[in-house]
């Protein structure tokens, strides 16, 4: 898994590539990278899942932990460009009840600006 960071309008975007799995993680976990941004006062986080093939339960834990840390600091974490298969599983497991998911990055960015 490879995670790259970029910024747009005070929103931190993580472009994730590969599978978010326990056996396939980079030097820092997703949650650690999100917490680093929160420590810097960046409270708007967008996870770009365009190139995420699949995630396992570890990946679910990482996403939820990132969501909780962001929420507890009054920030927001959203997901964009998730694949149809992942979205279906997110729906079945009710993760869509807490995670805001957008088809496109632009609409996700706009949603941050509206709030």
């Amino acid at each position: 898994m490879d995670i790259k960071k970029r910024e747009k309008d005070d929103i931190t975007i993580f472009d994730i590539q590969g599978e978010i799995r326990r056996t396939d993680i980079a030097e820092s976990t997703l949650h650690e990278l999100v917490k680093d941004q929160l420590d810097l006062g960046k409270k708007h986080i967008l996870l770009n899942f365009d190139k995420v093939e699949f995630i396992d339960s570890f990946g679910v834990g990482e996403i939820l932990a990132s969501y909780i840390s962001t929420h507890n600091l009054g920030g927001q974490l959203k997901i964009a460009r998730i694949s149809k298969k992942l979205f279906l599983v997110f729906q079945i497991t009710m993760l869509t009840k807490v995670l805001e998911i957008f088809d496109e990055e632009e609409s996700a960015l706009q949603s941050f600006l509206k709030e």
Partner: protein
Amino acid sequence: MRTGRPFRWPPRLPGVKRGEETPAVLLFLLFFLITAPFSIFKSIRDASFLTELGSENLPLAYATAFFVGLAVALQAKLQARVSRRALLSGSMMFFSLTGAIFALLLQMSGKWLALAYWVWANILIVSLMTQYWMLVNDIFNPREAKRLIGFIGSGGILGGIAGGLLTGFLAESFPLGILFLGGVLLLAAIPVILRLTGRGRPGGEPRDSRAAETENRDASLRQEGFKSCFDIVRRNDYLRLLAGIVLLTGLISTFVDWQSKAVIEMTVRGHLASFFGWFNAGLLIFSFFLQILGTSRIVDRYGIRSLLLFYPAVILIFTLGLSAWPVLVLAVALKGGDKSLSYSINQSARELLYFPVPPEQRVRAKVFIDMFLNRFSRTAGAILLLAAFALPWPSPLQAVGILSVLTLAAWIALNLKAASAYVRIVKDKLRGRWDRGDRVVEAEVDVGFAKTVFDLIETRRRSPVLFSLHLYDLMRKKKLTPDIRAMLLSEPGDPRFTALGALFEAGAEAAASAAGLEAEDAALEQFVREVMGLEVYGQVMEEYLARALERGGADDPVTRMEIAKALGLMPPRSPLVRRLEELLEDESEDVVRYALESAGRLGLREHVPAVVRRLGHPRLQDAAEEALMQYGPRITGGLLDILLDSSEPPAARRKAASILGGIGDQDAVDGLLFSLGAVSGKIRDEVLDALDRARSAGGVIRFDRNLVLAHLAEEFKRVYKIFIAEARTRKEGKDDPMRKGWASGLVLGVFKILGLAYPREDVFKAYKNWLSGTRESVAYALELLDNFLSKSVRDRLFPLLEDHSLKDRLRLIRSRLKNGGELRP
């Protein structure tokens, strides 16, 4: 060499921040120009009436308040047609002209002239006062007004003093008409100040938006008029409560006025206008010092409840005194107490009570309550006075005293009710409740189920056995939902199957077994349980496990993953589960993760050390935490040992704190609270979060308040030092770190500790609104905190939260850091 502070211009005004000086000074002047002439008119009014008609006819004068109410209703009609400034300017012209006529008529004497003059003076003051406070509400928001009320209110008191002194000095030497004309000239200066107040307002929200808001409201009023003002009050519980308070305040003031004037009439032998001039000036000097030195401090220190009770308590004491000893000193003290407190503390309290009312409702309610009901209360007071005179009581003074005490009791009861309602409405004004992220997730998502589903899908590619074990796991938990069955049974060509793509490439065999499960869940579960419980199964599996585990890392970890998962589904008493210990030490993280899950499920004490060792592992710590959470309070002591042991890895200590927070019973909380003083850095942050998590669970857990406040004092020091260090790195005077997102994390610890000592929901409502950063939401957040935090806590917290320049904030924070002692509950 010169020493000392540099000369500052303009000088710092009490409670006034930079940028607010101009509107605050203009409102101060405006108030001065309203009360100075009124003080002159009032002294002449009282003297004329007592001389011409006597105190026995005072109820007649009070009853004329009804006509004042009618005049005010007429003004409300006008207000619905013209802007606030135009109405105030027009009123000035009307009162200046009619005042000039009275100045001429005062050369003559006559009973009815004294009465007409009384009515005119009363219309003048109620009309101008109401419009003045509406103007203040238009310009400042609740919190700004609360801060500035001491300063601008003192303008009114100074005006009254000036008018009173002028009357006291000149009444005996000059004709009253000349004195009166002086008052009229002061009134004529008001339109000039009014024009200037329209030119700017302090920083923050642009003036234009508030002006537009006022215009909209005025336009709306134009459509509706006085009846809508009455309807607003009639339909709103809180406004009805305020109306009740104003009605009772008016009754009390009427009784106090009559009691004091009756005694003054009996005892004063000199020039009455001059006496009233001195008297008004004297009581206003007292009011002035009370306002400057006391009101803001009382408001600041005691909050709305005490503020509302202070005035009735003072009046009650003097009323009882005067009823027993009708002497001039007590009459002056009663009237002085009534007037000085009504101008200062009562006025502040009443304006505060209006602040949570939406502006559109507030402006209409004020028209009815302040301009009409307030007047009507005088008429009602007059009727009650006449009724008291008719009672067969030896002295009318004593009869009125009893009436007054009964009314005071009702007044105090309503004030208490209003204080509670005020806090409730301020809370309602704040944006929704603040839930911790983990509570939000808990409420909406079954995380264990979600993870099993992802693992189910993931393992389909790796192992049919693991896949089946996950299916069995879901079935046991009654979570094999129709959605999941449909997803697993989807045929090729079905759009959902197409979307899942390769995930379902495992083929029809697994799908067919899923189809079988649909019909036979219960039977299958029973069957599996029976098989696992068979002695022969145990013997066969024992051999298999021995072979598989001996091969260890040389073998594919998938086999050991299958075993680790399967062991968690077996009965805890099965001899096979002792094999789990080896798997908890496996070199494959996947295997250990399954073993941790099974350990948590089995809950056997012998696995705890191996699970705890995984708390420090970056990729396994979450699974270890989940497993230990399932052990619950049985392992509290062990977790506290890890938390307090500095030789343990920091990650393990953080996780221990987190688990203790999740357990959240009294022992865990006591241990966490104790450990707060022994840990630092990120471990301390985790302990704070754990305490907050335990608190947010809403159980009956006691938090030692003194210990909490001691930790809070330490947290303030820590935050202050971080802020000062951060401020040094920013551009001087311009870049305040508290205005950055950075600050939200900085003060979060403070709010978490506050949440342990005070109502957590209110604390975090305030935090959430403060975070949002808009002027109004921050004002309401601080107002809510104001109502339940002790003064010593507010003094430390507010320099961080209030809007200050970086320079002022640094000064305040350094002073708190230097002088900070213990915090009091």
